[in-house]
């Protein structure tokens, strides 16, 4: 298409050039012949006045030397009768076309006809009529067209070679990209980036493609890791449940053993929690997690959750250090409870052995903050920015902590949906988790 456009432009340009050139040539010719006619006219005044045909003929014969392209020259007198005629080729006489006025020119059948008046003492005493053969002009025009055509061929050839070269360079890289895409599509191997040293738009495209691949590879890796963790985490409680129920089955005629049933039940709850976390994450990711906002007393909710967290472990003592005793806030009570349970059970889980867990509630004029502090194994500072990420599980843990690594991710999402903040502080021993919620004027409630 581009080659075609270039050719079209070139053709138009050449045509314009040739036409202007031919036109200029014709104009020059006309001026030239006119001046010859003028000279003949001036020199033939006396010949006409003295009716000397011989002198006139002699002068016209000189034309052969001056301008051989003039094939006919006629001197007419004032009555338009032929006074003298010169016709070296012996061609039949050409009549002056009736349409031609004095001092004008006409192009006719490759001939230029020129008339010029002979003036003496401001009186027209006759006129000159010249016929010029234009073979030279034809020759020149033909030569120009031929040259233009040759130049056009060269230009097209050159354009084609350059375009072909560029296209090949571009196509080669694009094809490589397409082939890599096909290969990746087939094999699912996202790990090898494409190498391209260009600096143009294709290089940008390849660069973006590489980044996309790296992103996908990272996600695939995370997904694989998650499947590994999920299968382990779900199968572990399932093993216990299945085992105890199988044992109960083998002793059908005896009364069920309380311990077996309790252990199975406890692990069913564990499974339920895991599945709930998965569902929450799926809701968060699909944007379907909705808050049910209402007024409630945060302090009372804290009492309830601390009591149930205390039930989880007899080895831990949860100590209240509250600075305030009552705080009405506006939020989703169930979701805030979920955050509290999560943080409290983390505090218990990550501080194995007999330990205390401190819970503190305080506020300033804008927000209320809850702090949950444990004295357990702690979290290395370099892991702090990561712990709220999806599927992140601390690498340094020497005790087995079950779960998907989704709890803190869900907590952060819930708190941020309340326009609150959640953060971690490191202590010499253990960890402090904080979250703060706005004490809103109920008129300007947090709109979800």
């Amino acid at each position, binding site marked *: 298409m581009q080659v075609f456009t270039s050719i079209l432009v070139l053709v138009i340009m050449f045509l314009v050039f040739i036409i202007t050139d031919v036109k200029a040539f014709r104009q020059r010719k006309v001026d030239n012949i006119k001046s010859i006619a003028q000279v003949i006219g001036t020199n033939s005044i006396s010949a006409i006045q003295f009716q000397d045909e011989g002198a006139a003929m002699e002068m016209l014969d000189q034309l052969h030397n001056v301008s051989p392209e003039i094939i006919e020259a006629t001197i007419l007198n004032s009555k338009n009768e032929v006074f003298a005629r010169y016709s070296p080729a012996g061609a039949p006489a050409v009549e002056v076309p009736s349409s031609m006025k004095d001092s004008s020119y006409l192009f006719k059948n490759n001939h230029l006809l020129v008339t010029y008046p002979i003036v003496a003492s401001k009186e027209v005493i006759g006129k000159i009529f010249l016929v010029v053969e234009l073979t030279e002009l034809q020759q020149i025009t033909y030569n120009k067209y031929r040259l233009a055509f040759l130049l056009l061929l060269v230009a097209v050839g050159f354009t084609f070679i350059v375009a072909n070269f560029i296209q090949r360079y571009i196509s080669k890289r694009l094809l490589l990209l397409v082939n890599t895409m096909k290969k990746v599509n087939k094999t699912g191997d996202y790990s090898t980036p494409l190498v391209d040293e260009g600096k143009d738009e294709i290089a940008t495209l390849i660069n973006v493609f590489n980044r996309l691949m790296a992103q996908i590879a990272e996600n695939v890796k995370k997904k694989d890791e998650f499947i*590994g963790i999920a*299968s*382990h*985490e*779900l*199968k*572990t*409680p*399932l*093993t*216990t449940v*299945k*085992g*105890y129920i*199988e*044992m109960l089955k*083998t002793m059908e005629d005896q009364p069920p053993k309380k311990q*077996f049933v309790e*252990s199975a039940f*406890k*692990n069913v709850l564990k499974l339920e929690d895991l599945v709930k976390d998965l569902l929450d994450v799926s809701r968060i990711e699909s944007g379907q997690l909705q808050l049910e906002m209402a007024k409630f007393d945060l302090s009372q909710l804290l009492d309830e959750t601390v009591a149930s967290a205390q039930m989880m472990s007899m080895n831990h003592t949860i100590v209240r250090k509250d600075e305030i005793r009552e705080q009405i806030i506006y939020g989703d009570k169930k979701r805030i409870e979920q955050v509290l349970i999560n943080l409290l059970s983390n505090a218990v889980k990550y501080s194995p052995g007999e330990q205390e867990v401190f819970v503190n509630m305080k506020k300033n004029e804008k927000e209320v903050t809850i702090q949950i502090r444990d004295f357990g194994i702690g979290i290395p500072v370099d892991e702090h920015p990561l712990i709220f990420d999806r599927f992140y599980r601390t690498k340094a*843990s*020497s*005790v*087995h*902590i*079950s779960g998907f690594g989704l709890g803190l991710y869900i907590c952060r999402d819930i708190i941020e949906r309340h326009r609150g903040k959640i953060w971690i502080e490191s202590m010499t021993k253990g960890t402090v988790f904080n979250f703060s919620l706005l004490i809103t004027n109920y008129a300007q409630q947090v709109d979800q």
Partner: protein
Amino acid sequence: MNKILVVDDDIDILGLVEIMLNSNHYDVKAISRWQEIDTSMHNFKPDLVLLDVSLGGADGREICKSIKAAKETENLPVILFSANPEMGKYIEECSAQSFIPKPFEIQYLLTTIKHFLN
């Protein structure tokens, strides 16, 4: 009475396996901390070890290798178990006798143990 050492960091599974093996007349020592394996091997002198692969900070496969590397325990049968079925691929690498994926059938576990004790 054959002696079996069970190592699993999940207390519930540990309890289940202990009850199950006890009721099938085995002498069982169940531990949840891998750090106690060495002392248990020394004091309890098991006839078979049932070993979880992911032990919170330790890898059951490595522990199995070290058991097989020690002269006095090189012929001790070790059965690995894990919730990750992929781990079954590694039994030859760490010279374990068998691999049991979780969740397992009690009967299958008992049959496997019996097989390697004879």
